[in-house]
């Protein structure tokens, strides 16, 4: 397990009356694509912020690739292994030139100067943004900004990449661009942890962790979780549209073979009906 957490609890006010996280056990395999699904305020960000020690562990245990997150000497090593892209594309840039922005992280990690341009270029290539090195991040579209932010993370060659609601502010094209990126990195062997409250984004994950009121209320194979409407209801998450259609048709007396989770599966099953 590349991520191994036991009994993690966290309280922002430190007086132990209200918990943002409560007794969460977490295990994620190397190379897995995991989606953390939950409504606003369910504790998703709080949970993943423990993974690269943006938040300090208060209760429980957590190791990332064998590194204990509470060991302060290892913080920088940890953050290099575990990169993170955030929701707002507009406030993750430190420089007004793309290449400087990506170089910034590398300089922080004291990568030798002569190696930096090469690493910046290969990071831009990975996110399909070669040729944008001299541009100002401000002049880019939302999806492009998120890909540049991602390039900054990729330049450090992390094993684990966390996406914290990175599509929330993007237009439909931008969303697709970024989701495409996640799938590509997953194929290339990275461990992907994607946070979202859009089930449509969860369908491509290997597994889903369902959060509600600071607790992990379920975890398992994507298909099992996304077709369990009772469970999703408790989590205050709307099931995928394909699942909703399946149950509405069932109510009307039309039974499809198996409950689909993607629109493509739904269409295929409907087309197979006599």
């Amino acid at each position, binding site marked *: 397990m590349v991520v191994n957490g036991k009994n993690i609890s966290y309280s922002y006010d430190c007086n132990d009356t209200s918990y943002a996280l409560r007794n969460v056990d977490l295990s994620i395999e190397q190379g897995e694509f995991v989606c953390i699904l939950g409504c606003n305020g369910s504790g998703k960000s709080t949970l993943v912020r423990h993974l690269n020690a943006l938040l300090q562990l208060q209760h429980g245990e957590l190791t990332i690739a064998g590194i204990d997150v509470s060991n302060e000497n290892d913080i920088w090593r940890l953050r290099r292994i575990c990169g993170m892209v955030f929701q707002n594309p507009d406030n993750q840039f430190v420089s007004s030139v793309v290449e400087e922005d990506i170089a910034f992280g590398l300089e922080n990690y004291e990568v030798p100067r002569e190696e930096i341009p090469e690493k910046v270029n290969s990071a831009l290539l990975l996110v399909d943004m070669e040729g944008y090195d001299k541009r100002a991040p401000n002049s880019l579209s939302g999806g492009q900004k998120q890909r540049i932010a991602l390039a900054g993370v990729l330049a450090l060659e992390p094993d684990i990449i966390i996406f914290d609601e990175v599509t929330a502010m993007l237009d439909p094209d931008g969303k697709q661009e970024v989701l495409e990126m996640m799938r590509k990195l997953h194929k290339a062997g990275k461990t992907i942890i994607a946070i979202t*409250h859009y089930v449509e984004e969860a369908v491509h994950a290997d597994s889903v962790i369902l959060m509600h009121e600071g607790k992990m209320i379920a975890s398992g194979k994507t298909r099992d979780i996304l077709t369990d409407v009772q469970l999703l209801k408790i989590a205050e*998450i709307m099931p995928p549209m394909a699942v909703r259609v399946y149950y509405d*048709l069932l109510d009307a007396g039309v039974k499809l073979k198996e409950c689909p989770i993607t629109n493509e599966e739904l269409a295929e099953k*409907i087309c197979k009906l006599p």
Partner: protein
Amino acid sequence: MQITIDNLSYTYTDPSGQTVHALQSVSCSIDPGDFTGIIGRTGCGKTTLILLIAGLLTPTKGHIFLDGRDINDKSYDRNLLRQSIGVVFQYPEVQLFETTVEKDVAFGLTYSRLGSKEKEDRIEWALETMGFDFEKIRKQSPLALSGGEKRRVAIAGVLAVKPKILIFDEPIAGLDPYGRQNFMELVSRLNDDGTTIIMISHNMDALAEYTKRLIVLDEGKVIQSGKTRDIFLGWGRDTRGTEPQQIASLISKGKNTLLDDVVTYDDLIFALKKQLLGVEQHE
């Protein structure tokens, strides 16, 4: 209030002297009581357009008329403009700064001529309209609230002024599905009560469900405007539509029969029942 936009252009000049033609010869109109969505990809000029309508930018060229009067005319009463149009910017929750929720909402009424009793009534009304229990929330610190709650408090601050026109810049971005639905229903109720609503959003499904009209921008120009349903149906098999439209399109491709007239989820279920069971009526 009738909004008429006539041949409006806006050009930004950044510090290096470079110019961006954010809007070019835009003309359109918004009737009193409309619920109008503005869509288009990032950078197409949506935010610029609403800043101009609210009088927060001055046009490079062209005019904006409110009930026939040019809002950029020297004789136009700026105070009237501020009372008539309320703008909720993107991520309004970052602008909360008072010590209590009540004070934050009151801030919007700083320039109003209401007496203190009336002000308090307004604050109570605005917070209750946004779904809060006034007595419970009034003395709380805005900083202690969740993201969604903060956003509703920020909107209450704009609402308290009772503007005739309410403009929202991507108000549901980042809200979870039920939060989104609650918010859209609440805005619809304000619209039912006569408030003109203008809303920028990327969420096609929410726009299809709730707005009456759409303005589609591309590279600073209006490329389409009209009734929401007509515009969605006009796109046909295009991928830009709503999720039910995409499903209908996939089914049509596989089955060689068209699921026409599908825009919303209810349309989809209706069309499927009709096709699979021969059931004719909406439930």
